[in-house]
Each structure stands twice: as C-alpha cells, then as structure tokens.
C-alpha cells in the first residue's frame, strides 16, 4: 500500500512489519521519532513487543544483547553521540553474534555541536563487526531493515546490522513509500529461531573468557561470517525483488555506468542528488555514471574491481573524514582497487559535513574534474574538500 511517510516513520513501520519482539531505546535527535513511534505502537497494541525504557544507549544495546540471547527479535535506533556511547556494546553484540538490527540516523559528532547529517558517527563504528548499509531514500530504509533481519539471522551469518539513513534529509522528510502487507512480510521473513538460547532451567555463562589459544579462531569466524554476508545480501535482494518488485540484488547499485568514462561512488541520500547531476551531464554529452555504495560492511571489493575494469577514472564522495588520507570510503575503495593501480585513478571528495547541503552543481563540478583527469591522464590532488565557504576546493 502506498503511503506518505518520513524516513523515521518508515523505520518504525519496518520494525512493526518484522514483528520485532524487544525494543530498547534512548532518545536522541534526529532518531527520537523512531523510538516515540514504536512506544506508541506498543502502547496501543499495534505491536506485540516489550519496550524497555533505558537510561542510556549503552544500556539499550546491553539490554538487547540479553534479549537476543533469549531468542527474541530485537530493535533499537540511535544517532551520533548516542552511537558513540554504545561503542563498547557494539563490539559485544557482534562478537556474541547477536543479529540486532538498528537504524542509525546519521548525524555529525560534536563539537562543534551539530544535529545535522554526516557519516562521521557511523564511520567511527566501521570496525566493530557490524554490517553497515546506507539508504538513499525512505523506501530503501523500510526495505533494508526487513532484508537486514533475514541476513542477520541467517544461521551462517548471525551478525548485527546498522541501516543508515541521513538525519533530517531522510529522517524528517516525507516521501512516497510502498508498504507491504505484514502477511507478505511473514512469507519473506521467518521467525527468529537461534540454535543457542538461554534456558532458565539450565543456567549457563554467556560471553565467557577465552584464552589466547582459541580467541583468534573466534575472531576468524566473525570475519568469515562477514565475508559470507556478501552472498547472503545478494540472495536476500533477489528474493526481495521476487516478492516485492524492488531490486536490491547488488551491493553496489550502478547508475548509467555501462559506457561511462568516469564514475562517482556515493552513499546515502547524496546518491540521489548525484544521479540527477549525472543525468544533466549526460544531456550535455558527458559520459558519467554513479556507483551507489549500498553495502559498506561487508565491503563489496569484487563488485568495485569489476567496475574498475570498465571505468578507469573513479571518484569517491565522502560525508566523513578520517584525519588521514581523505574519507573512510575513499581509503577503502582505493585499497580495493589497488590491483588495478596502474590503470585506474581514484580521487576523493570530502563534502556535506555537519549537514552542509551538497548540491547538483557541486556534483557536476566533481564530474567535470573527473573528466579532466580522464582526458589528461594526470591527477594533481588525490583528495579535495569541496565547496568550502570561499567557494574553493582545498587539500591543505
């Protein structure tokens, strides 16, 4: 059924459709309306779930780890400082292989105090062992949360997942969303039934100490599950397309890349803006494409290599900065494409930090910059900050 809803309403709706059983959440802008909507749905009986009111995000995640051990399907949502406070428990959730699904409504970390979107918060958690997926729009937010449970709870995977929607740009903006009937979802997403569950009649210790002789093997198994998750996301995407018609059957969505001279890798809501800019460039005869990186963890190395085989000049737009060589996605893309280093040029662009608008005009400038690199075959700056106040692009 078609509905008009915000990204946060779509996220809450997805939790309801997934028949989530335990929710523990703490309010933080711009996530708050997800936890409020869920509280309302639990209170009025629309959802048959336990809602645990906690005193912090750290406690929210701790509560869900316990609930997940019982065998309950679990859900929370957070942003920015709240996600940072959860940091320790994120490692626990992933290491204990608890398939918790959590929308992260991305927001800058302070100072400077700022409630608007960028990806510094999620990039700060990229090495916790969580799967991380970026949404371009509200439809994708709803769909990816449903898919996330299917992948996360797969017995070969058992890893938690963050579904990232850009603060305000998606979270508080109304869009058309096609909402499947809950009976259709039941067909796509089966109840959570883990092999190991807490049994009160047979008490055990969970998360117990492992000595150096085996701890590394546990970590290796985590890594193996993340690798397998690539295939599982593709499979979940194919099944989703069959059931609901929308296509998420690749980890990287290619837009007009078939004959492109240059491609720009973008994640999150900015991908939509980049696509419009690409259309404008195409109208002027410039062969440009957009590669939307939907799945950041697991990282789609193979798909990017296939792109690099065809498109020899690749830009990466990052809404984050690592205080080293450019943004987080740029570093990883360049790393993935290293086997093609003699043929492929990768340029990084930093922009849209702290909610700064990133416009079609700016994306068109990035495409022009990439085309110039492709024409001349030389690149003078590896990374630039785009659209600073004086209108300039800079790399120190």
């Amino acid at each position, binding site marked *: 059924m078609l509905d008009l809803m915000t990204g946060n309403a779509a996220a809450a709706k997805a939790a309801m459709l997934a028949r989530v059983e335990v929710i523990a959440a703490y309010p933080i802008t711009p996530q708050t309306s997800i936890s409020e909507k869920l509280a309302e749905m639990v209170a009025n009986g629309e959802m048959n779930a336990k809602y645990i009111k906690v005193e912090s995000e750290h406690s929210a995640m701790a509560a869900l780890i316990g609930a997940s051990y019982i065998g309950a399907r679990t859900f929370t949502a957070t942003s920015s400082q709240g996600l940072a406070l959860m940091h320790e428990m994120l490692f626990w959730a992933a290491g204990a292989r*608890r398939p918790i699904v959590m929308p992260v409504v991305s927001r800058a970390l302070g100072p400077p105090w700022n409630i608007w979107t960028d990806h510094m918060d999620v990039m700060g958690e990229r090495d916790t062992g969580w799967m991380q997926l970026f949404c371009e729009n509200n439809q994708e937010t709803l769909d990816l949360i449903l898919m996330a449970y299917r992948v996360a709870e797969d017995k070969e995977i058992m890893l938690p997942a963050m579904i990232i929607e850009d603060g305000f740009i998606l979270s508080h903006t109304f869009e058309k969303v096609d909402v499947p009937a809950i009976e259709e979802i039941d067909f796509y997403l089966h109840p959570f039934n883990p092999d190991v569950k807490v049994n009160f009649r047979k008490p*055990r210790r969970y*998360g117990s100490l*492992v000595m150096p002789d*085996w701890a590394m*093997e*546990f970590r290796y198994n985590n890594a193996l599950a993340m690798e397998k998750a690539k295939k599982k996301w593709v499979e979940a995407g194919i099944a989703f397309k069959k059931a609901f018609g929308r296509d998420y059957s690749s980890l990287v969505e290619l837009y007009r890349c078939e004959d492109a001279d240059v491609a720009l890798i973008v994640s999150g809501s900015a991908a939509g803006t980049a696509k419009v800019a690409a259309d404008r460039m195409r109208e002027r005869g410039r062969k440009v494409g957009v590669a939307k990186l939907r799945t950041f963890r697991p990282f789609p190395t193979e798909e990017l290599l296939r792109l690099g085989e065809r498109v020899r000049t690749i830009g990466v737009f990052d809404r984050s900065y690592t205080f080293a060589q450019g943004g987080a996605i740029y570093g990883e893309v360049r790393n993935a494409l290293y086997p093609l280093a003699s043929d492929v040029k990768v340029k990084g662009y930093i922009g849209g930090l702290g909610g700064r608008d990133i416009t079609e005009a700016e994306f068109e400038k990035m495409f022009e910059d990439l085309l110039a690199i492709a024409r001349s075959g030389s690149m003078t700056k590896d990374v630039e900050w785009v659209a600073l106040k004086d209108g300039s692009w800079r790399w120190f």
Partner: protein
Amino acid sequence: METYRDLPQSTYSLQTTESVRTGTWRTFRPIIDTKKCTRCYTCWKFCPDVSIELREEGDYPKVDYDHCKGCGICANECPTVAITMVREDSIC
C-alpha cells in the same frame, strides 16, 4: 576441538560462575561473630557478589568463601560491628 570450524558461534560455558572458585584472590576474610550478630541480614542485602548465604529466615548469615572477594562492605555496613576483616595470611 582442533580448528576454528569446531567452535560454537559465540562463547558460553555449560555451568554458571558458581562452579568457578573466584574467592581465591581475597586478601581480607570477613568473619561473623554470631554472639554479636542480630540476624538483621544487612550484610546479605549489601554483598555485591551474592556471597552471604542465607538458607532460611532465622538462620545466621554465612559467608561463601569460594566466591567472597573480601571487599569488606559487609563489615562496614554491619550495625552491630559483628563482622571483622582478618588478613588471609594471618589465618593458619
């Protein structure tokens, strides 16, 4: 178990922590003087490690030395000063 393939996905032990003697690193041992003890069970309420045993209402509290870490909170809270902390190496 020989390789990573033999491991469960996440760690758990088949028994609870009760089976592990964690009281061995104690420096001071709480000793309850039943002549002074009024069986108010304040020590039982305050023990952060559930190491004061109380089988039935009316019993004197007993310290579970297999798990007591010797923090001394019971001795500090006891209203009749019935609990004294004694150095382990002074007990033969």
